[in-house]
């Protein structure tokens, strides 16, 4: 006689249910809880920030440069340290960098971190950058590379 037929159907069902719960539990722990923890960690990082997702703009006669970041911390009355995914965006270009000190009165910006300028057919990579004169002058510091496509 087949050994399988000797097993109690109820016990077998319970075993399958237990196995299903075990797999479900494993998947739940692996994905849902991990994501929750990551989100929690991220929100905890934001706790250290004075401003979450700060937004500014630099305006001059010819163009507007929008400034955005994930976090900002006040350095003094007029300067803010922008951190995580800092972006300066105008209709002609985007500058991506990190740890940028933005002066809210003079509307200037300075960074010593790796920076990337992207515009039509052009990219500039440098070790830091600076924006002065309402965005008219952009200074890329240190050893720099400009690629024209």
């Amino acid at each position: 006689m087949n050994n399988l037929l000797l097993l109690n159907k109820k016990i077998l069902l319970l075993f399958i249910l237990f196995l299903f719960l075990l797999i479900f539990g494993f998947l739940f722990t692996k994905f849902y809880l991990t994501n929750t923890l990551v989100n929690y960690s991220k929100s905890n990082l934001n706790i250290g920030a004075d401003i979450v997702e700060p937004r500014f703009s630099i305006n001059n006669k010819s163009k507007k440069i929008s400034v955005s970041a994930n976090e900002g911390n006040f350095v003094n009355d007029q300067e803010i340290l922008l951190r995580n995914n800092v972006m300066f965006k105008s209709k002609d270009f985007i500058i991506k960098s990190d740890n940028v000190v933005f002066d809210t009165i003079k509307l200037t910006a300075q960074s010593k971190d790796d920076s990337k300028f992207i515009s039509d057919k052009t990219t500039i990579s440098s070790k830091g950058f600076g924006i002065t004169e309402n965005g008219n002058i952009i200074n890329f510091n240190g050893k720099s590379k400009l690629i024209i496509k």
Partner: protein
Amino acid sequence: MKFFFIIICILIFTKELYSRNIGETEILTDDGIEVFQKEKYYLLKKNVKIESDTFSLKGDNVEVYFEKDLYDIKKIVAIGNVNFNSSEYNLNGLGNELILYTEKEEIIINGIQSKLIINGTEMKSDGNINVNNLTGEFFILGDNSSLLAQEIYIIGEKIDGIFSSNTEVNEIKFLDVKDKNISYIKSDDTEMYAKHAIYKKEIDIIELKEDVKIIRDGETISGDYGTLDTKDNSYKVKSNSSNKVKVVIINSDE
């Protein structure tokens, strides 16, 4: 497995070594780039290297003027230890300052020991060298200015000329050479001195004015005015009424 590992390594290192792709222009600087948006130019600072498929340039500092955006270059001003090469236009040169107008294809080189070689024609000067590649017009101005073309060598303080633009090798159509001391022209076996010399390709004549001296085969003829026919290599020397034409013949057998 080992083979694939080697291939991957080669690909990675090749990408690292040659970061510029075909058709791209790469500009490297040691001390950054300053972009002036209103004035529409950018300043490349310290030890600048520009490299594209057909053009390369090195200089201490370079200003690049653009029309619409950074890629749309209309003028390049390179200052300090400038050295450049263009395989497209078959030219290379060096000098203290280079000004290059991309649209009108005009090149200006300034400074001591400036040098430009264009389609085999060599120009040197301690002043300025100016060439318009579209019109073929050029001038070399200043001390130690010289021009070495296929069959002619010229030294003069001011050398004006026009190249024929429809030939692969630059053929000189017109020349105007001036020097307050004396200018020098060597064509084939003939050496010529004068304060002012004019060459016109259409009539094949070199016209010499003031303090003229023509030397050929040990024979020196001096006067106030002379012409050399480049077709049959014959020459004439005239003198003002007050002076006389002087002929000195040196016999090399003596």
